[in-house]
């Protein structure tokens, strides 16, 4: 059986001199949480939007392969994609306030997607919405269904977004920084919920985050993105125990860990900033910030395998 989502050599550009995604590949299996991690501007969100075919105007995607449950997404027209979106593949965005319509009640927004895709009655859709609100830990779902987004706290809104994404029983859920705008206490609650739903429903979850703490706690598999490329990919424990790409190593050193570091010791940091890389760029995108870079890094980057299922893009020996 083919994997749930297969992305091979995805390229995304917006017509200018910058390539947003440069040959990124990743696979999400059924029942797996796959985290896509990297800094702002590395192409994480664009990758997700390219999968959903929701790129902003002017965005152009190509790929060797882009398939969902074996179906070629590149061959689907707008109608075909609209049939999948919100249905078998759903997405949650970072800011629940801007992704909910302030003029409609929670109930009408939640039921719309199901009535459209599943052609069910309002009654059935409302029952499902209430049931899902309960499952995402919202007390008094009946009351919430009649309320407007502004009447809910940030944490509640994000729960509503999750419940809404689950209305049509998706196989794949893409969550783009779903907890970044929330307090740490609420973040923990939402992530617990996502992990639990992922297990119970056997979802494939592609979770986009910049937070390595989140990655460590919820991911089965991690792909690290830098300047539009997936530079390292491995099972979570493997990646944290044995990071091979200098960028991954640098990222891990930057994270302050409570109780694990000395106060006066400076934190590890990565000098410089993410470069803008245009079409036709050769060599390693990280070389200007890398302390191991040499002349060969400007020409080519080998794809290496550190262990089965652990790949990285760097000349450094496995």
């Amino acid at each position: 059986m083919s994997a749930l989502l297969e992305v091979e050599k995805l390229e995304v550009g917006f017509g200018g001199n910058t390539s947003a995604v440069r040959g990124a590949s990743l696979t999400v299996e059924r029942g797996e949480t796959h985290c896509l991690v990297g800094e702002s501007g590395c192409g994480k969100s664009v990758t997700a939007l390219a999968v959903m075919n929701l790129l902003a105007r002017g965005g152009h995607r190509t790929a060797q392969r882009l398939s969902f449950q074996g179906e070629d997404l590149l061959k689907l027209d707008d109608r075909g994609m609209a049939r999948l979106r919100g249905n078998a593949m759903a997405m949650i965005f970072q800011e629940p306030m801007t992704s909910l319509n302030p003029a409609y009640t929670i109930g009408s927004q939640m039921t719309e997607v199901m009535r459209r895709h599943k052609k069910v009655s309002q009654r059935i859709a409302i029952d499902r919405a209430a049931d899902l609100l309960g499952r995402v830990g919202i007390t008094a779902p009946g009351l919430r269904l009649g309320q407007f987004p502004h009447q809910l706290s940030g944490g509640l809104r994000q729960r509503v977004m999750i419940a809404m994404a689950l209305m049509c029983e998706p196989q794949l859920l893409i969550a783009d920084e779903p907890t970044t705008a929330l307090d740490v206490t609420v973040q923990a609650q939402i992530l617990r919920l996502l992990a639990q739903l992922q297990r119970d429903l056997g979802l494939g979850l592609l979770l986009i985050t910049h937070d390595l703490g989140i990655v460590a706690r919820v991911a089965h598999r991690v792909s690290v993105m830098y300047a539009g490329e997936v530079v390292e990919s491995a099972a979570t424990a493997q990646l944290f125990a044995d990071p091979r790409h200098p960028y991954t190593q640098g990222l891990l050193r930057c994270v302050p860990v409570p109780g694990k570091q000395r106060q006066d010791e400076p934190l590890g940091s990565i000098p410089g900033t993410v470069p803008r890389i245009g079409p036709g760029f050769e060599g390693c995108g990280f070389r200007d910030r890398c302390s191991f870079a040499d002349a060969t890094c400007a020409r080519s980057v080998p794809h290496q395998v550190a262990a089965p299922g652990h790949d990285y893009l760097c000349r450094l020996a496995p």
Partner: protein
Amino acid sequence: MSTTTTPAIELRSVGKTFRVAGGVLGKDRRVVAVDGVSFAVPPGGVLGVVGESGCGKSTLARLILGLLEPDSGDIAVEGQRIVDMDRKARARLIQPVFQDPFSSLNPLTRIRDIVAMPLQAQGTFSRAEIARRVDEMLSRVGLPGEMGNRLPAELSGGQRQRVAIARALVLRPRIVVCDEPTSALDVSVQAQILNLLAELRRDLGLTYLFISHNLAVVEHVASEVAVMYLGRIVEKKPTQALFHDPEHPYTKALLASVLTPEPGLGVPDVGLGDVMPDPANIPPGCRFHPRCPIAEPRCATETPPLRPRPGGGVECLLVP
């Protein structure tokens, strides 16, 4: 702290309440932002303030900066009441660094002029002196001199935050109030900025009030930590003591919700339920009791006393 040194920052029973208009039919609401807060920060110290959104952290920062006047209580900076000082004197003593380097810098003003503004506002510096100090400050925060002629939009987030730091330090203040200074930044850039702030504090002998929702960051930079909940400081201790021996159930929940990069531990159950704190509707008794995993009936009626601890204290009925 010895009794002879004047604290860099001292608050005595400071309170601040806002009135929020209730709309056409609604009643006005009283939002209690800061309620009976007292503490002192010794010179050269770093007080970290943590808590969820709406707990009053940013109001506290604005009160200490003199941008808001307290309804009750006293705020003194280096022994002088902040409300008695004029703006220029205040600016020479205490300066802010805010969270969002995208909105805290005027997009139409060149970097050099942004950094020069506090000096110009004083009205006592010559042009040459201003230029010299701006150059010195830009290089001090790690910005190449030619960047002075650029506009904020041409800079990355980390570079903009360096500009904000340069602007805060150009008058050589004694105290800097940092309100979530790295929250809008990537982790690699966050580390650069935290290292810069630590280095500047050491070299210039600064005192920081450091507000953050990120406990790992606070542990790294602070010498003492105050935990705020609905306008009150519910626990305050030296950093080591707070992180190793948290006593208040809210502090414990905050610490439990920190997701350290340790695979296999899963996401903890912080046990706070889904009741959200509302500063316009403060619960009676202990204000944390509706979310507290160990609350007893008396927590809903009795006000918790302050139990003193070395370097601070804890406000909970259930700790001895």
